């Protein structure tokens, strides 16, 4: 006799493999640089009730939870009785899909022997949806481009050509968008095919038993992890740079017997620029941060996500309501782990890292508007750099490393090969890691200019210029980010559009991570090694660590 739990586990493993396959196929076919460099996609398999069974572990946490909720919303909106094999539903509604218009969610009912037994879904970041383009300048969602409410994109295998034409007609990158949508369709179809093949191979006709097994096992494991935690409520306030004035993010984290509740009550209201965050996206990053520390070994699904609940007053900047502009929702969304860790560190002081640079240091460069007339090079670069991560309770922070996002940085040689840009320097920034028993990761010092006689346009949306990453448990703050133009030492704010003139040099310094524990407690060997490696200058070491070197 074959033991049935093993068989269910084999099927679970198969489902995990199938979503990873789907995810990889989607990344390979994608046109959007953020998908290619960061794996900004997701793929998932759902049961007939819309409960998520598996989700691909992809590059960025922005889809954790959002996909689980989105599929539930979509599957509830359309009656199963009206679904037919080959149908695929679609939306890019930021409040349903993933927080801004660029993220498209497709969902396909999976039929087996004439019945809907589940769904496959996937999300990918499309290059351009018209409007003002990717940037914080829109004053409402209508400025930001085309919104497609939940609708049927494919009917019995037939793509709705008009819908596709509308998406293309409203984009600066129609060909890329079309390619990306077809990639999403192929991803849904592949998942659906694999799922039915698996059912055939294992001789099952529905997903009930498998679904219950996955969800119950994962829920039980998560609850066991929660049971080990101290119970209570902890509060924290995180101040961030904002667009033109600083913003307070508030959180209260309650650890109860059988769930965690995060409440953003007290958080500042939405602003007039596109850095507002829909709750689904704030939830994604917050839950990601929690799950890094609580039950990290359990895969994402309806069972493991269920005990993590997030709420916030409507209209606060972490629960933006339509028609607030949300294009750059990731700028603040990526700060929410530091907000959450501010609470959690009070409950688990020896488990939670110090604050880090957290927000990606995007460096999107374009040709200037007059380039077409002047015959200059036309180009668009989506460079991403990162600062240092916060020191961990038992380890230094990581220098120049993305967290919480999972983006990949770029290479100087490939960038210079495709755009009129010349780098003069890209090195770690000495003394930028917050001092402490464990040191924060270092930020970077980057210098670049146009390699030809033409101006460059830069669209900034970064954080931690006014508010550096704070240390924890006596650790010191990391260095703030700094963006200047030489000659003239022109200091730039963290958000908005900048022209770098031919002959000028942009100096782009990413923030360091905060330190953990008192600097006095850092081991002399570690201090000595920092000095020898040039990560900390001797002068700084003298004053920070107060030791005779």
């Amino acid at each position: 006799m074959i033991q049935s739990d093993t068989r269910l586990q084999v099927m679970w493993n198969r489902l995990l493999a199938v979503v990873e396959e789907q995810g990889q196929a989607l990344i390979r076919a994608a046109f959007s640089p953020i998908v290619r460099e960061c794996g900004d996609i997701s793929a998932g398999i759902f049961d007939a009730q819309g409960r998520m069974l598996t989700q691909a572990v992809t590059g960025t946490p922005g889809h954790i939870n959002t996909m689980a909720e989105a599929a539930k919303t979509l599957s509830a909106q359309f009656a199963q009785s009206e679904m037919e094999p080959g149908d695929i539903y679609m939306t890019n509604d930021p409040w349903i899909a993933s927080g801004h218009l660029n993220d498209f969610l497709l969902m396909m009912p999976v039929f087996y022997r004439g019945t809907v037994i589940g769904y496959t879904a996937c999300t990918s970041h499309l290059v351009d949806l018209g409007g003002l383009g990717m940037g914080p300048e829109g004053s409402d969602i209508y400025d930001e481009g085309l919104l497609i409410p939940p609708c049927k994109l494919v009917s019995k295998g037939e793509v709705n050509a008009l819908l596709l034409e509308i998406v293309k007609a409203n984009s600066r990158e129609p060909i890329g968008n079309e390619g990306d949508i077809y990639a999403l369709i192929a991803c849904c179809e592949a998942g659906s095919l694999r799922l039915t093949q698996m059912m055939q191979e294992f001789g099952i006709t529905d997903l009930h038993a498998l679904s219950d097994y996955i969800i119950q096992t994962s829920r039980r494991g998560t609850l066991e992890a929660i049971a080990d935690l101290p119970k209570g409520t902890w509060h924290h306030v995180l101040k961030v740079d904002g667009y033109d004035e600083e913003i307070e993010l508030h959180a209260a984290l309650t650890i109860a017997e059988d769930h965690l509740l995060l409440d953003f009550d007290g958080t500042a209201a939405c602003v007039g620029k596109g850095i507002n965050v829909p709750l689904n996206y704030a939830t994604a990053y917050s839950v990601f941060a929690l799950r890094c520390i609580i039950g990290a070994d359990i895969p994402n699904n309806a069972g493991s996500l269920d005990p993590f609940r997030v709420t916030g007053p409507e209209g606060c900047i972490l629960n933006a309501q339509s028609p607030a502009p949300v294009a750059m929702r990731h700028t603040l969304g990526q700060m929410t782990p530091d907000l959450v860790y501010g609470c959690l560190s009070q409950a688990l002081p020896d488990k939670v890292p110090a604050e880090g640079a957290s927000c990606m240091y995007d460096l999107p460069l374009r040709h200037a508007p007059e380039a077409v007339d002047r015959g200059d090079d036309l180009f668009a670069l989506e460079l991403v750099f990162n600062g240092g991560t916060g020191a961990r309770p038992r380890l230094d922070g990581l220098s120049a490393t993305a967290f919480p996002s999972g983006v990949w940085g770029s290479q100087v040689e490939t960038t210079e090969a495709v755009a009129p840009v010349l780098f003069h320097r890209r090195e770690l920034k000495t003394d930028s890691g917050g001092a402490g028993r464990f040191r924060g990761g270092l930020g970077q010092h980057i210098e670049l200019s146009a390699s030809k006689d033409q101006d460059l346009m830069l669209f900034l949306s970064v954080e931690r210029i006014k508010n550096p990453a704070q240390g924890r448990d006596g650790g010191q703050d990391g260095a703030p980010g700094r963006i200047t133009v030489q000659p003239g030492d022109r200091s730039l704010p963290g958000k908005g559009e900048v022209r770098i003139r031919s002959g000028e040099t942009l100096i782009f310094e990413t923030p360091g991570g905060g330190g953990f524990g008192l600097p006095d407690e850092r081991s002399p060997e570690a201090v000595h090694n920092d000095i020898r490696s040039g990560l900390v200058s001797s002068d700084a070491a003298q004053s920070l660590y107060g030791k005779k070197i």
Partner: protein
Amino acid sequence: MAIDIGGTFTDTVLLNRDSQIVATTKTPTTAKRPALGALAGATHVLETAGTDWQKVSGFIHGTTLATNALIERRGAATATITTRGFRDILEIAYERRYSQYAIDLVKPDLIVPRTHSLTIGGRMDANGQELEALDETGIALLVAELKALEVEAVAVCLLHSYANPAHELKLRDLLTRHMPDLVISLSHEVSPEAREFDRLCTTIANAYVQPLMAGYLQDFEARFRQLGLACPILMMTAGGGMTTLETASRLPIRLVESGPAGGAVLAARIAEATGEKNVLSFDMGGTTAKLCLIDDFRPQTARKFEISRAERYIRGSGMPVRIPVIEMIEIGAGGGSIASVDRLGRLQVGPHSAGSDPGPAAFGKGGDKPTVTDSDLTLGLIEPGRFAEGRLQVDPDAAQRALAKDIGGPLGLQSDQAAFAVSEIVDESMASAGRMHAVESGKDLSNRVMIAFGGNGPLHATRVARRAQMRRVLIPRDPGVGSAVGFLFAPVSYEVIRSRYAQLDTLDIDGLNQFFASMQAEAEQVVRAGAPDGPLLQRRVAYMRYHGQGHEIEIRLPDRELTTSEIGALKAAFETEYSRQFSRIVPDMTIEVLNWGMSVYSHAPAQAPQSETQNSHPAVPTGRREILCDVSGEWRAAGVFNRPDLPPGATVNGPALIVEAQTTTFVSADFSAAVDGQGNIWLTRHEEAQK
């Protein structure tokens, strides 16, 4: 003669003039002095075949020494020199964590610490134009720093050196003048591709093992020459070709992972002999399983792989190395892989391995953890008396006890059910790895033939094939020493991949032809050293993609100069391949190329002539064993057959065990086996079993 020095065993194979195997042996690897184990194996096969060193007319060697030196960090003290302003190429890397949820992640150790990273002024641009001359006045300081660091080797990687190597060459001259004993690796020679982090890592890895490997190769050659070996020694490379000792000493990084490459070469050779155009090779040993896609008789190749991963099977946790390699997916699933139950009550198998010491619980050498081999024993698939040529006593009771304790207890299973579960999990993970690898390559597994070898490949082949929806499996002769056999069928070859950005619409044909001519000259020079006579073949490729995409598709180019009129054909070739992989093309999108490849190779040894197909007839079992059937989950009797006794044409119905010296082929109940004229076993899954 071919000698493959692996981590545990050294395999030696002797082939005669007609490409027939006349002797094989497995001897323990002598880690301190690997040449000694090799000599023992060589002496043994010569004695077995009744011949002597004077008659050996070809000698091919592969070794894990370079790989192990990298893993165990036994290389030279190494420094780096990069362009001023770019000291932290290594520290910054791709700015990412390899594991999303791991808060306490530690990044891989990339060999050279920041204290050993030096810089020099001078700058080239992406087109190879000099923007700033090399700072020759800075050499004195650099030399002083290198001396103070007491390094033995240095890796030089200057920005855009792939486009213009002048500064790297000049720097080597200047350094050599001051420090004649310094071992210097230049990035444009080791890996002339754009992407400074990858190129630097590759150059470091090369510099790091170079002193050790040069010394080893010198010693190895001297020892065999002393015995009377007269023919040249050729080295197996990761790309599946052979190269000379001189090239191997200069570019030892190309020798890593050459053993597994040999297995893929063997599978490709069998694919060609049997006319199978779509193959998956499945090489399962004691620690890992390796799978490789083989189309049109060529193993799939890649330009990059990772060494010394922080977490062995997690992509991105290691040091990237950009050299031409046979692309394989490797997972921690072998006979020694340990089974356990995690805190969610899920059964896990691998990636940790009991290795050969202490080994599976059944070995009785102190291992008490249940492994895949323990599970196979408990399922009745291994005859205890005939394991490893009968040289190793195995204890089925110990296997059962370990399974009952670690798996059966927590999951509430009898030991046989626990064994069954271990098999299900490990077979599923191998099938998944294969499917994933195929998907990543835009390919499908279901219509492929699996060619299975390695100590455990034939034992698990039908179970993995079923899960991967594959219907046919081939077990070659001497599957236990497959890699070494593969060495004997490799061509002498050299491949260069170099970066040169271009868009297809505005391709500079003359410039490109010159670019290829220089790559061809470089490759031919290397190949001629190992294959002085006979015609050379070549293969030119371009790695194309739509502008804006990251994934490149390899497109074969004509093996000669191009003309402007052929650009349309190149575009068509890309679109054909693109639509094969993605079902459609993107009509108005620009097509671009960053990397170009050129390989030059000699003819591989001729295939032995195909024998006539024999009339099929059912074979008679030499005995029967009770096995736990993987299809029905019930105990039932399986016929036992002795492989050497099965003549061409013999057929066997599953369930059955076909036993030979170094492994056992398990024929599942839904498969039947037939022996062909070459002695290969073909396993075919019954149609009716598929519903």
